[in-house]
């Protein structure tokens, strides 16, 4: 196997399916694990997370196959207080359970029956998992002792023994599936009364087996968002009535909890009925050390680097205390940074000044700006290789009406003589403008800007998404493979930046698969990204690094469909809502700030930092969401004029990101 293949196996493939349902040996305990409060809390959980945040792996870890893994030697005695039953709904099948000349109430009964079948099968399987595990108080021989005659009150054909019951339920499930496929021709089965049946089963189990006395079953229902409305109500009802020994939990993408109604009069209430856990938020809070651990673990398991982390520590909840210590976190981050060194602002400036084309561009920009000011001062008055950062920001400053060339030169002289000045003093000319100016310099070149390089940068670009992070690392390391099949580490910033752009391009393409509105989201992101790119090319850099926007009122109003679309964008993490502004302005969707997912920043050559906001009117937002090509072109032209964007150096047309005509 080549190094390239080994690297791909390690970092680029989704191996969750290959691992199967027992993820005990593979799961890395996330550092937010304690926040889930799994040991003690009896309230149902709503687990929120999108693709790449590890939600499925977590749910599989919580399920019985992992908890009672045969590879687990040491099973605590209280483990039965949490027996996880994972149910990933096949929503394309569930969607069939509507209409088709059957009344709604019949479908509701059918769905309850389907739920009972699925949960029962999983529950019965969990008993087998417990029996064959190292858990000493319940063995396979105990399975044979169960007598399920009492359940014949629900169905006289139910076999009384464990193995026969399992077979019977599986057969019932496939009969049900067959009926759903052809409701008009096949006879309807006798329906079980959903939750009631499951509770009855649990009751029988507990009565007959003292070891199961404390058993509490937690159903984890995944992919909630794609159910039909009535199905969601049924699941909500199960959630509302959750209490030991059967607690219902649901997992979904962000912004998918669109109904809190139940089949009864009372709706779900988030204070009383459940606790919400947003995995992406938890991850974002504390991402770098976790990301570093995953990276180092994957690379060492693939035998691509020496072991830098203790596998046992990562796989054991008891290891969390050690892992949360500051020294440990700094250590793992440090190891990751050795592979992907970050680039400081001053280093970025130095790259520019030592590069022939880029430094010429800096001088050219200064020259143009001086000409714009009709100044008699020369480029050499402002360009000094000993002061690269200042040299770079000068042209932007010169374009600003309030700055006179003489004044800027005077400040530069102060900087050079070590006195207080506007470049690095409180006015912070360098700090406020350097990144915007550097991005602008790199824009016409085929090389990616090293602003997108570095372990910490990768963490920011990924924003809590492990998958994104690993892809950035994978692409970078692939570029660092040498002729003699080894890694050229540390990976150069240039290679990292190129890798970031490549990953960004690929993830952009994935937007098309984001649910029903995927293709529209794709088009929207291109328009928004183009607008941000345009904003970054302002000659004055007066509003620098605009990569997020808010919506202020305009003549037009956003329709319900527009808001649904924005909701979808948030659901799929194409946009993030700034939590601070969300809390302050809970009632007003229009006051919220939306951040474009930073993973797309390298593609559009824009900043991934949250600096200045772009305020868009509702009219502009509507244009981005659903305007025609002409509407959008006009919008871009308007902003181009307003922002005095330099178009001379554009290697492609300004609208090169955008589709060529509808």
């Amino acid at each position, binding site marked *: 196997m080549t190094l390239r293949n080994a690297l791909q196996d390690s970092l680029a493939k989704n191996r969750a399916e290959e691992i199967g349902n027992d993820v005990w040996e593979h799961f890395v305990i996330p550092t937010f694990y304690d926040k889930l409060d799994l040991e003690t809390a009896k309230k149902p959980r709503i687990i929120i997370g999108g693709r790449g945040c590890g939600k499925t792996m977590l749910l599989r870890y919580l399920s019985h196959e992992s908890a009672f893994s045969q590879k687990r030697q040491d099973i605590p005695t209280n483990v039965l207080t949490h027996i996880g039953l994972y149910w990933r709904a096949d929503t394309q099948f569930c969607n069939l359970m509507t209409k088709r000349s059957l009344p709604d109430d019949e479908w509701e009964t059918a769905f309850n029956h389907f739920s009972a079948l699925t949960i029962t099968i999983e529950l019965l399987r969990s008993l087998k998992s417990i029996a064959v595990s190292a858990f000493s108080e319940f063995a396979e021989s105990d399975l044979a002792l169960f007598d399920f005659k009492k359940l014949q009150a629900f169905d006289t054909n139910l076999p009384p023994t464990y193995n026969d019951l399992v077979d019977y339920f599986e057969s019932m499930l*496939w009969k049900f599936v067959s009926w759903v496929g052809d409701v008009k021709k096949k006879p309807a089965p006798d329906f079980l009364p959903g939750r009631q049946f499951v509770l009855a089963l649990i009751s029988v189990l507990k009565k007959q087996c003292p070891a199961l006395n404390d058993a509490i079953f937690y159903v984890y229902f995944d992919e909630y968002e794609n159910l039909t409305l009535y199905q969601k109500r049924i699941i909500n009802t199960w959630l509302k009535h959750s209490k030991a020994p059967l607690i219902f939990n649901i997992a979904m993408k962000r912004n998918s909890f669109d109904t809190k109604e139940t089949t009864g009069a009372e709706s779900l209430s988030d204070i009383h009925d459940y606790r919400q856990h947003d995995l992406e938020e938890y991850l974002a809070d504390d991402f770098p050390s976790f990301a570093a651990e995953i990276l180092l673990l994957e690379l060492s398991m693939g035998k691509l680097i020496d072991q830098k982390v203790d596998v046992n520590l990562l796989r054991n909840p008891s290891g969390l205390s050690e892992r949360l210590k500051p020294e440990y976190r700094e250590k793992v981050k440090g190891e990751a940074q050795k592979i992907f060194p970050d680039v400081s602002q001053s280093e970025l400036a130095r790259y520019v000044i030592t590069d022939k084309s880029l430094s010429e561009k800096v001088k050219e920009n200064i020259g143009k700006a001086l000409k714009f000011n009709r100044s008699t001062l020369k480029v050499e008055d402002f360009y000094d290789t000993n002061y690269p950062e200042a040299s770079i920001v000068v042209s932007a400053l010169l374009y600003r009406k309030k700055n006179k060339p003489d004044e800027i030169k005077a400040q530069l002289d102060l900087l050079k003589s070590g006195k207080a000045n506007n470049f690095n003093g409180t006015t912070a000319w360098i700090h406020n403008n350097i990144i915007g100016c550097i991005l602008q310099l790199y824009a016409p070149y085929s090389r990616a800007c090293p602003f997108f390089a570095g372990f910490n940068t990768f963490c920011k670009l990924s924003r809590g998404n492990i998958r994104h992070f690993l892809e950035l690392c994978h692409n970078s390391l692939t570029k660092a493979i040498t002729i003699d099949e080894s890694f050229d580490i540390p990976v150069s910033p240039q290679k990292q930046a190129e890798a970031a752009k490549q990953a960004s391009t690929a993830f952009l393409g994935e937007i098309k698969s984001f649910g029903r509105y995927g293709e529209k989201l794709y088009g929207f992101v291109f328009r928004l990204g183009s607008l941000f790119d345009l904003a970054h090319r302002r000659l004055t850099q007066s509003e620098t690094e605009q990569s997020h926007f808010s919506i202020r009122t305009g003549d037009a109003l956003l329709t319900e469909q527009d808001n649904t679309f924005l909701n979808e964008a948030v659901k799929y993490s194409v946009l993030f809502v700034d939590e601070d502004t969300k809390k302050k302005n809970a009632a007003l969707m229009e006051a919220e700030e939306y951040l474009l997912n930073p993973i797309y920043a390298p593609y559009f050559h824009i900043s991934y930092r949250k600096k200045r906001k772009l305020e868009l009117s509702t009219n502009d937002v509507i244009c981005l969401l659903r305007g025609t090509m002409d509407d959008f072109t006009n919008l871009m032209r308007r902003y181009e004029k307003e922002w005095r964007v330099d178009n001379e150096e554009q290697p*492609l047309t300004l609208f090169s990101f955008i589709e060529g005509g509808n």
Partner: protein
Amino acid sequence: MNLQMREVESSSELNLATYDYGFIGKAIDDRTTAATAFISSVSKEALQIEYNADDFEILMNGETFDAEDLSNKLQFCEGKSVIIESTSIGFVEIYLLCKAFKERGIENFCILYVEPSTYKNMGRSKLLHRRDFELTAEFPPNYIGIPGASILLSDRQPQRGVFFLGYEQQRLDRALEDYPMIKPGRCNVVFGVPAFKPGWEMDAFANNIRVIRDKNIRGGISFCGAENPKATVSLLQEIQQSLQTGEKLFIAPIGTKPNGVGVALFAALNSDTGLLYDHPVKGKNRSSKVSKWHLYQVQEYK
């Protein structure tokens, strides 16, 4: 089942006798306009048929009814000559019609397909988006079961998936992302080779290979002619023969329409085959200009 296929440069070369009934869809671009007009000209009666995926209903000549009732509604076709215009109607309509014909004992019928000359390219930043195509638009697609061909995707039951792939990577990506119960180790992907034009297959390769790699799909890569339903049927028969005991087959016809025709013909005869489909609604003017005309003559369909 016997399948004869003909390819001609223009409809005038087909020299068809008049059919009693022709089933057509909407004319939304050059090809469908030409195709539906042609069917109308060679049929005594042209019936417009459309399937609503959300309501599981068929709209046929102004009447709406459950898709499962189509066979009953087509009693009038027994003993008559029928032709299906497959360019303008969707995969599900073709499948339901084949199923209805089988149930009604209609063993001989024809299917017409008009090949595109080009597909509409996005024209974006050309270099990185050369292989972006705009095919589906307006109404968001969704994977929804089809009555009569349903499948409960499950990693508990042995299942084998066959994905016929086209240019849009997001269709495969969505299926595997939204349904992780599908085992990539037991998934076949099929590419249309030869494609409508040499080199077009690279659009499908390039746009899907990343998903194939990301999901580690390793049940086999197959190829069959992009406009060859007979090769499609042969391939499916071969895969069916290789199924393990108790293994259920499902097919995702998310590639070319002729592949879809082959899938429909196969699935309607093999009722235990599941279908996984996302019901895209075609964008307007998505494929410009008519290229070749294909006539597929189905005989002894039982």
